[in-house]
């Protein structure tokens, strides 16, 4: 049963990721990105990471894609079909990506991963929160500072320079 669910989710994620990178209309790409993120959230549930699935839906689907759609609405002329979306490196890119894919596929399949017999902790989310505020408390604080700096930076970058305009 789990395998069937995995194949359905993987199929949806793969096809919609393909749509994200190939579709002509960038707005449709953003919508397919939502579908990809949703199926990845499903995969997280399958892997026993319920909290991460929730975070995935809230932050990726709810925030990042909406931000992207806002940016598309503000910058991209949706009615202007003459704007080309792909550059002329499609052939070379296909070759490079195919080579990378085959190489890393071979690595993934050949490597003998040290599979552990232990199972995830019973109360997964509880354990995650405990780890985050005990073992990983310093990275946790650092990442919050990074987020703050990034948000201030985003405001400063996108602010209109009033003196320059007048």
């Amino acid at each position, binding site marked *: 049963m789990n*395998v069937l669910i*995995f194949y359905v989710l*993987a199929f949806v*994620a*793969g096809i919609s*990721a*393909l749509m*994200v*990178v190939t579709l002509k209309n*960038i707005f449709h*790409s953003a919508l397919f990105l939502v579908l*990809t*993120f949703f199926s990845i959230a499903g*995969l997280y549930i399958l*892997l026993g*990471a319920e909290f991460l699935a929730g*975070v*995935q839906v809230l*932050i990726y689907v709810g*925030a*990042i894609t909406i*931000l*992207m759609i*806002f*940016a598309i609405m*503000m*910058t*991209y002329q949706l009615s202007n079909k003459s*704007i*080309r*979306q*792909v550059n002329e*490196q*499609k052939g*070379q890119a*296909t070759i*490079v*990506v*195919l080579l*990378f*894919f085959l190489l*890393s596929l071979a690595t*993934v399949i050949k490597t003998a*991963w*040290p*599979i*552990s017999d*232990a199972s*995830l*902790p019973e109360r*997964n989310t509880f354990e*995650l929160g405990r*780890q985050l505020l005990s073992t*990983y408390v310093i990275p946790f604080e650092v990442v919050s500072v*990074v*987020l703050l700096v990034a*948000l201030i930076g*985003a405001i400063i*970058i*996108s602010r209109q320079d009033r003196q320059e305009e007048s």
Partner: protein
Amino acid sequence: MGELTLTHFLVLSTVLFALGIFGLLTRRNAIGVLMSIELMFNAAAINFVAFTKYVSPEGLAGQVFTIFIITIAAAEAAVGLAIVMLIYRNFKGIEVDKINFMKW
């Protein structure tokens, strides 16, 4: 159909990562490039979560780092889209191959 293994997830994330690289190399629209980067972030995050389940379930280290990845991705999207806005204001377009004012 057999049991669900680590390899299933690793192959899927390889596919997503390869598609992300393809989008990164071929998109002309800066927002399209950012979306491809998000795809690659997600492929890496799937790897982390899969390794947590199958290789080292004790400390949940992979899941903790997935939270960090998601945070950094949010920061990257905010700064990236702010830069896209600025580029649009200055160049009246966000085609990345037209933005070559640093070339000489």
